[in-house]
């Protein structure tokens, strides 16, 4: 016989009305984060019914949010022990596990709770979130199906179920879920007319269609039918062009690419890849690969093209794109990958001088994208100084830049025939570029010498200190690098980037205390800076610090830092 002071032992005797209302309040206060009130009300119930499982469990849950972990665990366990047939207790137990990141245990607890109260939407929702967290995709699909059956008037439940089907690979199933949902809507409903949500749903359905193997034609047709409701025209055009390329409809694909340029997508280099692929009628696998290229790389810098192919693509640029989009940075940059020999030299000369006069710090990095090596039918960036120095494009660039330097010295102009003299900043940028080229060629001393000239010329240029520091570090003198980069940082204490660089170099030099001082200049003021960095997931700092300890053979500290990092990333750290 259950003792009198333990009502609700299993399903059956609920709390008397007064205490039942108090319990409802406890839950409400918990949900609105009014923890002190929740505890007070819970204690009132417990005074009369000290063994009431659900109240004990709720109190424990609230305490957990107040950082009283041990007491919280004890109370929740006790509550569960007292009332194993309460879905509330199991639910709370699951929530506790979730806050401890024991996701598998939490899932087990939720499932127990559902065995008692099968149609509890709240628990089902919590369960589904953990299942997707743990990538239990079949489980996730089942749970979302249950939720949809219970609450089919919520749009989110339809979409979540479609997503679940998509994730487990039942693509046709996902599409039919979306279609059934759309079927539940009445004619003229806002979700069916042109709008952002409707358009995105249509594009999503289209994406699933395209993922079905060999289904490109159906995807393309669907794209046409949903055109009126899609708001994101750029994505729509992108999908269209990619489908057309896949189906070999090259002329149409080119037209679509032209439309994309007209919409203003001229600076998107992937669109340029589409354009070139359609002119050259390239295989769809190549087109897909080109789509993944970063930065200013296009299919022209990915695979070797024949001279005839390059000319055809170049004709497109010279006849169509230059006249229409002459000021576009990408339209001027990409054809440089399509020309060689003298034509390349002339074109890159114009390109470099424009960047020097404007003062583009990343000019050297941009030029390095021309130093490509062929390997197995694909181009790779040359990184080894030996490869770089031998590269034809590198030699051309260095020759041009050396020419500018001597011309500036003699005539204060970049080219002898220039009309106007250059301002003093141009020579600074030319030296800076030349030093960057020295870096690529592994000629650190020469680079450092030039940068010292830069510092004497304009001692307030922070970029110069950064590059000099980088060269010193590459040359092997990390301590000198720290000194230089720190001086640069001191010039502009609001520049977070150079502060990060200084911190990074200090960690490499084994100066972890100074490094912390530097980076603390940018962390939030409350609490200690290391905690703030942990919360902000500043991985490069944490890993740099751990590596710094390891170098000093402070194994304990290093392991602790690495361990904490892995723990936060959710990786189970086995011994």
């Amino acid at each position, binding site marked *: 016989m259950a003792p009198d002071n333990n009502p609700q032992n299993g399903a059956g005797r609920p709390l008397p009305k007064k205490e039942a209302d108090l319990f409802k309040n406890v839950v409400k206060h918990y949900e609105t984060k009014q923890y002190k009130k929740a505890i007070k009300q819970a204690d009132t119930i417990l005074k009369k019914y000290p063994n009431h499982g659900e109240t004990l469990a709720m109190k424990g849950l609230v305490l957990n949010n107040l950082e009283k972990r041990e007491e919280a665990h004890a109370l929740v366990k006790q509550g569960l022990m007292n009332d194993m047939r309460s879905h509330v207790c199991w639910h709370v137990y699951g929530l506790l596990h979730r806050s401890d990141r024991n996701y598998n245990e939490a899932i087990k607890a939720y499932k127990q709770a559902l065995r008692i109260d099968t149609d509890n939407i709240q628990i089902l929702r919590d369960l589904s979130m953990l299942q997707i967290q743990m990538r239990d995709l079949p489980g996730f699909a089942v749970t979302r199906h249950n939720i949809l059956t219970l609450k089919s008037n919520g749009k989110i439940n339809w979409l979540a179920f479609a997503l679940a089907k998509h994730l487990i690979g039942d693509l046709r199933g996902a599409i039919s879920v979306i279609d059934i949902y759309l079927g539940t809507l009445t004619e003229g409903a806002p979700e069916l007319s042109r709008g952002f949500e409707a358009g995105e749903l249509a594009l999503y359905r289209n994406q699933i269609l395209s993922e079905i193997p060999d289904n490109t034609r159906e995807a393309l047709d669907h794209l046409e039918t949903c055109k009126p409701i899609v708001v994101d025209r750029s994505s729509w055009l992108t999908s269209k062009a990619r489908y057309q390329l896949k189906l070999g409809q090259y002329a149409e694909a080119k037209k679509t690419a032209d439309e994309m340029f007209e919409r203003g997508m001229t600076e998107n280099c992937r669109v340029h890849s589409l354009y070139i692929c359609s002119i050259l009628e390239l295989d769809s696998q190549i087109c897909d690969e080109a789509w993944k290229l970063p930065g200013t790389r296009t299919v022209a810098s990915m695979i070797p093209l024949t001279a005839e192919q390059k000319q055809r693509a170049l004709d497109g640029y010279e006849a169509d794109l230059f006249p229409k989009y002459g000021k576009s940075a990408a339209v001027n940059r990409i054809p440089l990958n399509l020309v060689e020999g003298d034509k390349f030299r002339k074109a890159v000369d114009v390109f470099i001088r424009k960047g020097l006069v404007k003062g583009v710090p990343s000019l050297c990095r941009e030029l390095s994208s021309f130093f490509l090596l062929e390997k197995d039918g694909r181009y790779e960036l040359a990184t080894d100084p030996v490869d770089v120095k031998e590269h034809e494009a590198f030699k051309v660039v260095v020759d041009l830049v050396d020419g500018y330097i001597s011309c500036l010295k003699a005539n204060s102009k970049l080219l002898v025939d220039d009309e106007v003299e250059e*301002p003093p900043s141009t020579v600074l940028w030319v030296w800076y570029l030349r030093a960057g080229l020295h870096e690529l060629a592994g000629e650190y001393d020469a680079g450092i010498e030039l940068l010292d000239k830069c510092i004497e010329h304009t001692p307030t240029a922070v970029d110069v200190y950064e590059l000099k520091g980088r060269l010193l570090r590459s040359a092997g003198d990390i301590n000198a690098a720290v000194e230089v980069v720190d001086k640069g940082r001191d*010039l502009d*204490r609001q520049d977070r980037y150079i502060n990060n660089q200084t911190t990074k170099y200090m960690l490499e030099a084994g100066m972890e205390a100074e490094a912390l001082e530097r980076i603390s200049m940018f962390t939030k003021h409350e609490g200690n800076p290391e905690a703030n960095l942990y919360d902000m997931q500043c991985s490069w700092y944490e890993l740099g610090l751990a590596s710094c300890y390891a170098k000093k053979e402070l194994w304990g500290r290093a392991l602790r830092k690495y361990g904490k990092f892995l723990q936060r990333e959710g990786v189970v750290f086995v011994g």
Partner: protein
Amino acid sequence: MRRELEIEFGQITSDNVEQLRKVNLACFPVQYQETYYKGVVEGKNESLCKFAYFNGFVVGAACARLEGMKNSNKQRIYIMTLGVLAAYRGRGIGRQLIQSILDYYENNKDGALANVDEIALHVQISNEDAMKFYTTRFGFEKGEMVENYYKRIDPPHCYLLFKKLR
């Protein structure tokens, strides 16, 4: 004649005052004390203390302050330093810096600067270029010589250059 460079002005703050040190170090034979830098930063008056920027870099700076005058209850604008990095000289930058301070006076002579009636600075007696700059460009007058004004450079004497504004 080399082309004039158009500059932009910028405030001197505690976060970038190191750049002022660099300019001063490159331009002057004297080292300025912490009190000078503190005064510039804490004064927070970008009309009197400012950087000159070209192409994104600090290429020069002018620092002035308001001072009371002896034997009078009037004030003067006193130019403490005017410096332009060597590579950028001869381009009108110094002139633009001083002109902007004179413009500041013109725009506020009936308001915040109602009590100011003079602008002045000290120039080492051997610095002919500086004296020509202020006298011919801006109509400054050469005043008294002050002996042993500088502690560690030779010659240690200087002239007071000044211009009556009212």
